[in-house]
């Protein structure tokens, strides 16, 4: 049985972006006045067809195999069969997919990244909790990694069921001609295509997109596809698009803003995307420490952000190396553990602990200047 929220939800058509076979429902969209208010009414089910329908029964059959959770075996072994491309040879993206750009970018060494999302046309993203979106069953997210302009890997996450763990994860390694990409084993692959870039293992996928038993994470699993990360501009999929198309069940009452000076916003955003996915207050967080670097969308006062309440002028819990005096020591970057650990690589002090082999000079400079400017 679908959750009541889905039954009473809306279907939608992201015209020109999400494509699909649903009747446009724009006429029924209401302008939300307050956060938590539904965005629109759902049309009759007969009016809607998903471009990539998911049959719930096969999901259960997958779960039936040794009672293992849905995994990469549920996904195509080659990228061309995932539906991302209408023509992989020309790299034409299927019109049902939307390109999106988070406003804050996770450091992935020298990789450049592109992202696409498919949201089933007949369903909505449950955004009743604006900090923890719940994408509907059938949602697919892709992230492509290029090194020096060469496609190396494309990652896929698909929600296969309604449960909190019903997500499948796969990584695809591009061939030399970039005509096809093939699924990599659960062990991952180091130095893919002769680069320094490592394709993560299944365990490593879950260390960020899972929950604390494997590292850290958030209930949404799809970390970059979130309210705070999607801006309101027109360059890619934005909150405005999602709101107007009815692809989200609830819309924020106001434009999302991050409190503070431009320097604060840049630093908090950097920490949000590079640290907050694990260091947050959800049940899926890394539980060892009480650090919270996730930016809640509804924090109007900078003094209430996790960075202020758990990091700035706070002692470290576990990392008590001789070089540091606290998590963030105002005015003293060199004594701040967060900055110190951002510079570490190849040892247990490294942060983030996976997904990067080289410290991010710009990020280090940003956070160093920010801390140094504090009184």
């Amino acid at each position: 049985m679908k959750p009541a929220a889905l039954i009473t939800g809306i279907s939608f058509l992201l015209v020109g972006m999400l494509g699909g076979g649903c009747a446009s429902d724009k006429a029924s969209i209401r302008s939300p006045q307050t956060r938590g208010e539904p965005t629109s009414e759902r049309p009759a089910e007969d009016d809607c067809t998903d471009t990539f329908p998911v049959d719930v029964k096969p999901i259960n059959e997958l779960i039936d195999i040794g009672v293992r959770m849905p995994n990469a075996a549920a996904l195509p072994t080659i990228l061309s069969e995932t539906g991302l491309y209408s023509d992989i040879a020309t790299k034409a993206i299927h019109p049902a997919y939307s390109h999106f750009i988070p406003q804050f970018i996770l450091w992935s060494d020298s990789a450049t990244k592109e992202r696409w999302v498919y949201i089933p046309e007949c369903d909505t993203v449950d955004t009743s909790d604006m900090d923890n979106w719940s994408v509907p069953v059938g949602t697919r997210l892709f992230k492509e990694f290029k090194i020096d302009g060469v496609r190396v890997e494309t990652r896929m996450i698909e929600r296969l069921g309604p449960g909190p763990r019903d997500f499948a994860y796969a990584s695809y390694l591009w061939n030399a001609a970039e005509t096809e990409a093939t699924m990599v084993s659960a062990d991952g692959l180091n130095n893919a295509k002769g680069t320094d870039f490592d394709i993560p293992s299944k365990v490593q996928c879950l260390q960020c997109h899972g929950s604390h038993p494997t590292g850290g994470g958030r209930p949404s699993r799809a970390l970059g596809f979130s309210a705070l990360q999607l801006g309101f501009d027109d360059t890619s999929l934005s909150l405005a698009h999602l709101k107007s198309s009815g692809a989200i069940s609830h819309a924020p009452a106001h434009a999302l803003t991050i409190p503070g000076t431009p320097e604060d916003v840049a630093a908090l955003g950097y920490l949000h995307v590079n640290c907050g996915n694990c260091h947050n207050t959800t049940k899926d967080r890394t539980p060892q420490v009480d650090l919270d670097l996730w930016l809640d969308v509804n924090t109007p006062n900078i003094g209430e952000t996790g960075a202020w309440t758990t990091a700035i002028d706070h002692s470290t819990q576990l990392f008590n190396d001789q070089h540091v005096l606290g998590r963030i020591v105002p005015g003293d970057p060199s004594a701040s553990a967060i900055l110190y650990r951002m510079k570490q690589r190849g040892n247990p002090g490294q942060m983030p602990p996976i997904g990067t082999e080289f410290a991010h000079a710009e990020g280090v400079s940003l956070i160093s200047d920010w801390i140094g400017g504090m009184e």
Partner: protein
Amino acid sequence: MRTALFIAALWVAACGGKADNADPGTITPSPTDTAGDDSGTPGTPASFEVTGTVVDPDGTPVEGALVLVGGRDETMVSTDTDGRFSLWYDFEDHEEPAIVAGKLGYRAKGRDFFRYGEDLTIEIAPVNPPDNIDYRYQSPGDGIDTLDENCSHCHVGFVQDFLSSKHAEATRNPLLQDLYAGVSAHPDALSCEDAGGVWALGFEPGTEGDLINKCYLGGGVLPDLNTGCGGMGQPACDAPDLSDEAKPEVFGSCADCHAPGINGIAGGRDLHDAHGLSFELGVHCDTCHKVRDVDMSKPPGVGQRLIMGRPHEDGPVGFEWLPVFYGPLIDVPNPIMGGSIQPKFDSAEFCGGCHEHEQAALLPGEALDPELWPEGLPTHSTFSEWSAGPYNQDATQCQFCHMPADVEANNAVHFSTASKRGIVFGWPREPDNIRKHIFRGPLEGDPRLIDTALYTSIALTVEGDTIEATVSLNNIGCGHAIPTGEPMRALVMVVEAVGDCGVLEANGGMTISDVGGALASGTVGDGITSDGETLTWAEAAAIASAGQVVRVVRPSGVFDDYTGVGTFGTHDMSPEDKGMEIFSPVATVLITAVVDDTLMLGTPLDIAAGDRLFLGEALSGALEDGAVSRHLAGAAGYTFSRVLTDAGGERSVPHYKATDMVSDNRIGPGENALTSHAFHLPSGCGNVDVTATVMYRPHPLNLAVLRDWAAIDHRISVASKRLGE
């Protein structure tokens, strides 16, 4: 009636289906909320109320029983004084309604295929004391053959996990068996007698009385704790045909934790009573899941802290006893399991049942200092180290690291299916409720658990022609001290400085203590003399060879005020009482030849009365991970360990001999240890790198050498710093 139900459940388990035992008159529940009719079955309610009473076999209402929709903790309610309950049931796809009731001290019971509107009566059977010594522990199976009527029948993954774990080796571990019987690993009479042992016939561990020749050497639990055997002129304590007077009567409580599955009386057993299952598979499934409760006020092990609850109620056909398996979940109602909730299975306290031990002096006639150790000597303290640290949180109990959640498993019954969810096969679980039974040790996993524990850094300054290095070792990833509170573990850290002029001479700061191992040790003035070119040292000369080194250190009179652990972590203890005097490096000289009692030295040596000398191997080449341990005492560096001593003052003794603890500078969770070192910087020498290499040494090198055990150093952390950068 109960037997009939049980047989029905057995059939269900064998046939892999749901219990089709519904009353022909059973009806599909009527809707109470037609607005949510989305179940696919016309008339099926979206949600409805379930009421009933939980009773015991006498029909007496059970207060405080927990009742829930199977697999859904959020629906859980508690029965009132009349045993009554009421809960709300939200229907889900692929699910038959199933209500489960359970309570601490009872076997869980489930009901499905009930009528809508039926007021349920659920009878739960108690699992009362006493423990049943006539019960025979059951094998977990091989993790392959699911037709076996054992744990492998359903929990294939768990059994495979367990069989690969150190818990499975807990009894047959040869190091344990050697220390227990007082033998070594020398394989033949010649090597045994060369080492000073006695090659003789004795008990073969794991058998019911078979004999084997082995090397009696170095003492052990049986010979040291018993007065009628194992001593000079006495037969070995496990020799054949011992007289009643010679037979050992004191067993050191080893078996209480290392062989908990010995059938019969729980606790106080001879480790040599272990054979068959109890020997081969150590701390196996049926022993842990027969622990009814944990009482931390008692000594560790079964029959004491681990309160066993082997069933004594008559079982149904095919079962001698009514099954019971204690575990962390309330809703395990399969009659074959006899699931009985014990929340401590999810807690560190359960592990504390063995991994925490404060003991008396065990050797006859010896005693602890009651002022120093009023509660006993803390020879195992892993649990209390965790308890006192930042990992003492609900989410980070011992199981968090050592029984990691299986995020890919949906259920503990590894051949179950989503469509079979129910009383027999259980329900989908959250990861925290499906934990791998690998009991992950420090050297297991990728990365190894211990490799994520320590962050090491170096800070350098230059004063004149001396480089001052401060090394910081921060326990950032281990919930207890590193090394762990199990006895005999140590970290050995080597600090070296190398520039384009070669290896720099250490001329100040801290050095590796005797814990780092020495082939021989002595004090200048105590039978050791030197003319500057040679060293007269009879003890060393008897065993030394060219290529080895003599390391000379000098007592500073300054004691390390380390942070420490447990008693040695208290703020009111003086540095002197913490027991680690700093010995500074004087010289390391190469032995070029050995002539009689004299060592010929490669470089001149300037020593003074009171200097300590250690004979060891040279530090040539890299300190590789997994390399054979070297005797490193006296080298620049440090050691981190708990040092137990016996009544004669011997250091680093096995815990059964210990009467005192003279230092404990292990690094607690979140704690940071600092060491300081100095190196002479020759003029013009550049590109100087100072490197700290930390190695984990599971047991003392001197003990390994004595017993002919493999001695391996595991490199767990390396930090390097270039001067000027």
